[in-house]
């Protein structure tokens, strides 16, 4: 059997790959003819997603069902039968990842209908077109755009769609950033109600305002009036307290997200319940489970969210689905391989692929083939293939039948295809590093005209053949994966991650520095959903205690971490413990700490967490002032939500209580927006300040920027939202596990700037991060992320062995002069300088002195980045597969 994933967007792709790469059969069902979903429409994202699409298309464990739809579902968890466009599929579990649709009922008042008023999705297309042309042109008259206005919250936080779409603030910031990077002189204004971004996005918005000169204007825009070749935006100028106008060449509407149109039907077919907004109903403590056991949901099927959160949920859902299924498939790359011995005789085979016209339309391939045939040591040139499949078959047959011992492939980009091609070469029995890759598509066909492209292609191939002559077989060593995991931190995220890994069948060690499990949630009374935090903690702690595969170390910490993905070692030391543990993967879940802001003191000043607990009993105050966004630290994602939830509970207890909220931005993202609306309806007064309010002599005073006046409140109780700071241990763990920090929180391995497809992976393979250790988040996000981290860890633990990195640095000790600069430039501290005393021999003079001999040594952690090799002036340090002689051979043909 297997697992059915419904939806082939970013979430579906992520879930499918996690499953397939841990040995499960996957049926990936996509209603469109192509994978990628909405994300593939985004200007910057297609490039990031496409390597994963290629991986799926070539994955032996994935049955790709394109242009297909789910028609029926019967059976139960562990034994479902699905009908997909007429085909019967049997699966143990199902993942729903249908994605979202954009709000399309845009009000006429936004000037929608004018060609120069576009949605953010259309704008992505314009941005993509502008990359090629270098110009951003106005649709109506093709004149260059000089002034752009972005309007946020179009089709969200409104009557038709009352919730917040969560993603728009960040995606607008990203669009503006790309725009300003490409057109630095562009005049950009952004109209917003609240800026709901966190962490890195917060930094981006600050940078846009300060460095890029983007004007952020707080106003809900009532009207856009197209007139005489320009667009007049009416808005409320808060400083003047009057309606003002601004003219623009182009207006971009940041449209809101709606549940996928297919979700209604999916709900009918599967019996999965949806909530009042049309999203799959999940709970704050089980964000991935639906009401139907064995059917899981992830991404924008459950709520509007960003790519980062969406793919985290997808990884999490993959693990939940996997636990109900049997592993039936071999994991790619886990088979034994033997390579043929390559003798002195060079037999180079060159394969030039037409890439379905993408290369053959620009490059005269037959002409290039004729040139390459003349090159020394080239025994075969094939220019007849047109697809990946054809060329892979030709290469395999060239190795097996014709005894080729060096391969040059020219065509697709190595970014997406390198692994697939190396794998194919290896399967045919040739060491995978005897393959030379030429990116003829991106670096030649796409950028040169036809006459030029053929000349350039000839040069590129001459260079590649020159280099191929010097390629060496690289010895790849295998080492066994230790099927155990270490989880650092025993809070909600840590416990949940540990349970996920243990449920998948692996041993887990939890190391907690405190004397009991529970972490930050122990300070919380009720959750926003009304459940008692203590109940949740007890439930998790009981499950951990009962699970025989989990060992808990309390009052303990880890020391002396060594090893690499699949095979780590660490000492666990603490109260009466000093053990050496071995593990294949590690999950860091150290959480965060709340710190009460300074400058507000008195017996009547408490924190939101304390107020939350107080709400469990009696609240005697009649006038409450809540102050948000003060103090030093980062703003937790739950901060505004906790505030409005508590305000509502206080109102429920005593509807006469006066509550004043002093804030900068209310960030009740997603469905939590309704709490904010409800709070306002119930009479909670929200006052927006720019300069932090004061509390002196029993009076809270502030300047309200909406009223444009001073306000003074005499409260009985002051409740402070607390900013969060990273766990103290992060600094130490960061060094030990080689995972960098940003502002004290752990950084994910980004695939490229601003786009996160691997939110729980780090630059150190095998080390995963989750929960508030990454960014202080709501419990639902912590649960989803920790399951995701568990899922990613399990993908690794499912393997029998790992391979040492083939491309790594080596030292020629005879040449090394011991300057140690390589030690300093190495980003992963994989190089050390060894010193030994050597006697000094002089012309028969008695040896009176000794000298130190220093030599660099490359250790296990080398990631093959080449920083050391590029510095080393003596060339004592070199990178395998990128040796000087290989690069020089290539250069010789370029000059």
């Amino acid at each position, binding site marked *: 059997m297997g697992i059915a994933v419904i939806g082939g967007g970013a979430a579906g792709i992520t879930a499918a790959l996690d499953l397939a790469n841990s040995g499960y059969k996957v049926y990936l069902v996509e209603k469109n003819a192509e994978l990628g979903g909405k994300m593939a429409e985004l200007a910057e994202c297609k490039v990031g997603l496409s390597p994963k699409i290629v991986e799926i298309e070539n994955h032996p464990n994935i049955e790709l069902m394109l242009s297909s739809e789910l028609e029926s579902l019967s059976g139960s968890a562990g034994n479902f039968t699905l009908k997909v466009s007429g085909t019967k599929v049997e699966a143990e579990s199902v993942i729903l990842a249908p994605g979202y649709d954009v709000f399309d009922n845009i009000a006429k008042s936004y000037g929608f209908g004018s060609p120069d008023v576009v949605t953010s999705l259309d704008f992505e297309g314009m941005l993509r077109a502008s990359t090629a042309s270098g110009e951003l042109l106005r649709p109506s008259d093709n004149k260059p755009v000089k002034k752009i206005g972005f309007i946020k919250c179009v089709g969200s936080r409104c009557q038709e769609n009352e919730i917040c779409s969560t993603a728009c603030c960040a995606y607008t910031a990203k669009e503006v950033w790309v725009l300003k990077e490409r057109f630095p002189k562009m005049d950009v204004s952004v109209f917003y109600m609240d800026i709901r971004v966190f962490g890195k996005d917060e930094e981006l918005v600050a940078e846009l305002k300060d460095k890029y000169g983007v004007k952020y204007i707080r106003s809900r825009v009532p009207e856009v009036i197209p007139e005489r070749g320009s667009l007049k935006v009416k808005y409320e100028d808060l400083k003047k307290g009057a309606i003002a106008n601004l003219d623009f060449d182009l207006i971009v509407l940041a449209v809101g997200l709606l549940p996928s149109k297919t979700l209604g039907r999916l709900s009918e077919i599967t019996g999965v319940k949806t909530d009042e907004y049309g999203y799959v109903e999940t709970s704050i403590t089980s964000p991935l489970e639906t009401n139907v056991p064995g059917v899981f949901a992830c991404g924008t099927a459950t709520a509007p969210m960003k790519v980062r959160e969406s793919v985290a949920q997808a990884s999490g859902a993959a693990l939940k689905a996997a636990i109900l299924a049997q592993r039936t498939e071999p994991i790619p790359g886990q088979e034994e391989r033997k390579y043929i011995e390559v003798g002195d005789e060079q037999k180079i085979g060159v394969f030039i692929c037409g890439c379905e016209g993408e290369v053959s339309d620009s490059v005269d391939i037959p002409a290039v083939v004729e040139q390459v045939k003349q090159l020394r040591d080239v025994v075969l040139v094939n220019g007849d293939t047109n697809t990946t499949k054809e060329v892979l078959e030709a290469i395999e047959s060239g190795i097996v039948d014709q005894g080729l011992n060096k391969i040059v492939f020219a065509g697709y980009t190595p970014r997406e295809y390198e692994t697939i091609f190396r794998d194919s070469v290896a399967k045919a029995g040739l060491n995978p590093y005897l393959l030379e890759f030429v990116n003829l598509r991106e670096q030649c066909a796409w950028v040169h005209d036809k006459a030029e492209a053929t000349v350039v292609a000839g040069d590129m191939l001459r260079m590649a053949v020159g280099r191929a002559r010097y390629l060496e077989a690289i010895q790849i060593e295998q080492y066994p994966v230790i099927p155990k995991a270490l989880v650092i931190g025993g809070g909600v995220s840590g416990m949940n991650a540990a349970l996920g890994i243990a449920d998948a069948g692996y041993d887990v060690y939890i190391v907690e520095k405190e004397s009991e499990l529970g972490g930050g949630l122990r300070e919380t009374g009720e959750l926003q959903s009304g459940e008692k935090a203590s109940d949740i903690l007890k439930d998790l702690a009981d499950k951990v205690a009962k699970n025989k595969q989990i060992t808990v170390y309390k009052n303990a910490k880890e020391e002396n971490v060594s090893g690499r993905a699949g095979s780590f070692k660490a000492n666990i030391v603490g109260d009466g413990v000093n053990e050496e543990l071995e593990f294949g993967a590690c999950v860091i879940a150290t959480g965060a700490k709340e710190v009460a802001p300074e400058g507000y003191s008195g017996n009547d000043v408490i924190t939101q967490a304390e107020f939350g607990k107080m709400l469990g009993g009696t609240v005697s105050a009649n006038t409450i002032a809540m102050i948000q966004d003060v103090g030093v630290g980062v703003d937790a994602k739950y901060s505004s939500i906790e505030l409005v939830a508590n305000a509502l509970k206080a109102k429920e207890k005593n509807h006469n209580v006066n509550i004043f909220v002093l804030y900068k931005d209310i960030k009740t993202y997603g469905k939590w927006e309704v709490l904010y609306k409800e709070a306002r309806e119930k009479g909670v007064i929200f006052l927006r300040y720019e300069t932090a309010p004061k509390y002196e002599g029993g009076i809270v005073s502030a300047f309200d920027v909406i009223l444009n006046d001073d306000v003074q409140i005499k409260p009985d109780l002051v409740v402070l939202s607390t900013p969060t700071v990273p766990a103290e241990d992060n600094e130490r763990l960061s060094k030990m596990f080689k995972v960098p920090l940003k502002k004290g929180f752990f950084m994910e391995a980004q695939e490229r700037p601003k786009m996160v497809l691997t939110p729980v992976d780090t630059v150190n393979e095998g080390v995963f991060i989750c929960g508030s250790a990454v960014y202080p988040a709501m419990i639902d996000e912590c649960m989803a992320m920790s399951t995701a981290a568990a899922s990613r860890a399990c993908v690794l633990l499912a393997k029998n062995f790992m391979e040492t990195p083939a491309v790594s640095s080596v030292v020629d000790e005879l040449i090394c002069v011991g300057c140690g600069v390589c030690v300093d430039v190495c980003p992963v501290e994989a190089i050390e300088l060894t010193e030994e005393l050597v006697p000094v021999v002089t012309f028969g003079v008695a040896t009176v002195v000794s000298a*130190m001999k220093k030599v660099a040594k490359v250790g296990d952690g080398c990631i093959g980045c080449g920083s050391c090799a590029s510095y080393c002036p003596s060339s004592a340090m070199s990178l395998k597969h990128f040796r000087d002689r290989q690069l020089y051979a290539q250069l*010789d043909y370029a*000059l």
Partner: protein
Amino acid sequence: MKGAELKHGDLEGLLKGLLDKGVVDCLVVPHRAGKSVSYMLVTDADKIESAASALFAPSFSVNAANLVKGWTIKEKVGVVAKPCEIRAAVELIKLKQLDNESVLLIATDCSGAYTNQVYTEHYAEIGDQADSAKIKELEGKGLTIRESCAICENRLADVGDIIIATGAGDDLVVAGLTEKGEEALTTLELSLEDKDLERAAEKEEIAAEAKAKLASLPELSSLDALEEFLQDCIVCKNCRDMCPVCYCKECFFEQPLGDPAGGDLLNLAVLRGAVGLPTGQLFYHLTRVYHVSTTCVGCGACEDACPKDIPLTRFYPVITQKVQEIFKYEPGKDVDEPLPFTAYEEEELEECLR
């Protein structure tokens, strides 16, 4: 900083004291060899001679740092030399080619230097010392200091562990810049008092003159111009051997890839139709200037060493100064300042990106 006042006649005693009191195990000091000045390595204090006439001689033979390069020994060596030489030694400490614990760096004020050849030929006119007035006077007679000295902004001693600054007439001030330096002076039983040797105005004046001189040098504005500049180069690599901050054990240009010969060379000729011989002048100098781009102290040893009289000062220090400006790095200034290569910052040099 703390220091003491001395006379030129006290210098010999000062140096002898360093050996006698065990502050250092050996000393590398300038000494007179006829009219010329060169260095010697001394372990016996009695062998120290002619210190007074040699220490401030406006003559450049080799860079003293080059003499002690790679001395990673425990025995402590004192080096008495010009600021550019001391700065090179500091760079070598950063590159682990000298051990900071085993050296005592003593910098002397410099007024600019003549090549050994000019100095010995015109010793009668130049003498043991030359202040700036004298240097100007000699310039009128057609005797000019080395170009690298003329564009040097760091002639006043302000680096190393100890500095010896010249004052009016016979006056000198010796002062400790580091703890190690001060400790050494204390061991010598000098009565130390607070000294201000900032000499900002004087430095500014020197810098202005140096900058003007630099601006007057012909620029190498294109690759073609550079090729022409280097056309006489015979790739003897003397410039490398005399460079104090070229520190490899086996230079890339001694390895087969950097120094193709025989079949390798013929292969290139087959590939390109013809190759100039000696081959690789441009490659050699571009590689070398890249390697020393942050550490070059502008001492001019490379130019002195060139048998073909290529004015290498117009290439090496001129280019490396620009690189150092970009990184706001002053080689040899502070032993604790990391080499720019090793100090990676995620966001830097953004102005260079566009």
